[in-house]
């Protein structure tokens, strides 16, 4: 039977696609590595004065980097914790009316300039103020929409016939959601989470203006000290971080997609 040949064919084409995607996957770390090496080489050829040397101490940079990653991680986590359940609720049939209203509000929050939001939040009463909590809430507001929208879209693009089949076999609504709808929506949801993550990495640079720390502090220090070499290094680190976070999220997204489709 001709069917016998099909699995072989599929494996071959999948393997080929796999090889191409490995090349894709390697390009970002390679660029980051080369760029990082170039900056490091350039810095090493320069003689650093006291101020520059202190600003570029690994311990100082690592501390800023650590704060930056914590801000990014918490804000993305809060985005997921808020947007995914909300997205699930909005994707239900009964929420048809309010779905667009909530998505519009999310779009509004995203359209606000993050810097302005951060400053406003910092001046709000406790627990807001000039602290990391305000920063995280500001980041959450700015990055909520991609996850919310992709959760709704991801769930609503699940073939209604699959849901009918699941219910028709006696799966409860909850079981259908967790065993059929969510697994099939995960790739789309992951794409939204990736966007939120990258947004948060970038926006967290502003945290320093409201007492949140992060790599923004390094940039601000370099500017006030008027040391271009520190500024360039800080910029390179922020760019490399954003690229690597996007890359990691992309790898995760691809793994999930490969498993569910």
């Amino acid at each position: 039977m001709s069917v016998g040949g099909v699995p072989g064919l599929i494996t071959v084409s999948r393997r080929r696609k796999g090889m191409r995607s490995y090349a894709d996957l390697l390009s970002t770390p390679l660029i980051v590595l080369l760029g990082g090496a170039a900056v490091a080489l350039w810095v090493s050829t320069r003689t650093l004065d006291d101020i520059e040397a202190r600003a570029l101490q690994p311990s100082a940079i690592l501390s800023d980097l650590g704060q930056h990653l914590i801000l990014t991680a918490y804000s993305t986590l809060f985005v997921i914790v808020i947007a995914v359940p909300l997205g699930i609720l909005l994707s239900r049939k009964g929420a048809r009316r309010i779905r667009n209203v909530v998505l519009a509000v999310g779009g509004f929050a995203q359209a606000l300039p993050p810097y302005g939001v951060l400053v406003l939040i910092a001046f709000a009463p406790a627990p807001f103020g000039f602290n990391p909590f305000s920063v995280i809430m500001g980041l959450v507001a700015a990055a909520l929409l991609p996850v919310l929208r992709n959760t709704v879209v991801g769930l609503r693009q699940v073939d209604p016939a699959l849901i009918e089949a699941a219910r028709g076999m006696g799966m409860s609504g909850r079981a259908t959601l967790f065993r059929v709808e969510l697994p099939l929506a995960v790739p789309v949801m992951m794409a939204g989470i990736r966007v939120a993550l990258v947004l948060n990495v970038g926006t967290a640079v502003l945290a320093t203006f409201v007492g949140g720390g992060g790599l923004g502090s390094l940039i601000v220090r370099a500017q006030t000290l008027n040391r271009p070499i520190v500024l360039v290094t800080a910029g390179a680190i922020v760019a490399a971080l954003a690229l690597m976070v996007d890359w990691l999220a992309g790898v995760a997204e691809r793994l999930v997609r490969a498993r569910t489709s």
Partner: protein
Amino acid sequence: MSETTTNPHGIAEGHPDQRPMIVLEGVSKTYPGQTIPAVAELDLAVPRGSIVMLVGPSGCGKTTTLKMMNRLIEPTTGRILLDGEDVTGVNADQLRRRIGYVIQQVGLFPHFTVGENIAVVPRMLGWDRQRIRQRVDELLELVGLHPREFRDRYPRQLSGGQQQRVGVARALAADPPVMLMDEPFGAIDPVTRERLHDEFLEIQRTVRKTICFVTHDLQEAIKLGDHIAIFTAGGRLAQYDTPEGILSRPANDFVAEFVGSGAAVRRLHLIALSTLDLDEIATGSSPTAAALVTVPLSGSVYDAVDAMLDAQTSVVAVVDDDGQAVGALRWNTLVEKLQLRGLHP
């Protein structure tokens, strides 16, 4: 079409329990925001172990009726009895695990393997791993897919016909007494559909389920159904009868029109060659038996007429499974025989 004429499992005979498997009593459905009911005051009894085809034009309420049987759609009024038990108020999820369900789009879960798809209901019922695995393999064999080759494949690696076989296997998984099928072969090419029909009847001969089957294809209904329920707009039952009854005694103009002008020819499907007295094949005269066009004894008069027209001859030889000629059928005598049976147009 030996199915309908030589069927030894007709409701009237053999079965100790004469109670119909599914009974609809005064069932109506009016969708919210509509004044005209989709199904109105429907009474229908589906005999145990038989196939009832729900047929009718689009929007006649046949699918609504089917989905009310497993309460995917809740009836507005009336009650539904499953094996004598009123199921109108029971837990719908539990009810559906006792009823196989097959839909046109098949609805196999793309992230589950074939085996996992079939195992869905047994898993919900808490079967142990060993029993599930055994059942999956048994069902794959039943629907003609080799377990070792297909069990661990994903649905996208199957053809449309293979997918629908898995769909049927999945519906049969927990051995439910009742199967509901919503145009299961509607999206499949005609050649594959023919084959699936034959396999479906073959499977039904072994499993003897009570089956409700929605189709808009009268031909399919005649071929597969023990009984046919023809719906007219507004979910009213225009006629509920055997295929032969529908074709030869349409109850009203609507049915007559729905059956259309080809009724006489369609009816030929229902007459198995094995039920006719065949002519002797005259030895020595020409054409000799060997030169005749042959049709299998398991076929219908329709097949014989088709063979005659195709070969432009007025006589065919009827052969048994071993290819031995058991008799001849001539055009002239065929027409007389049909008149004697009261089956003439």
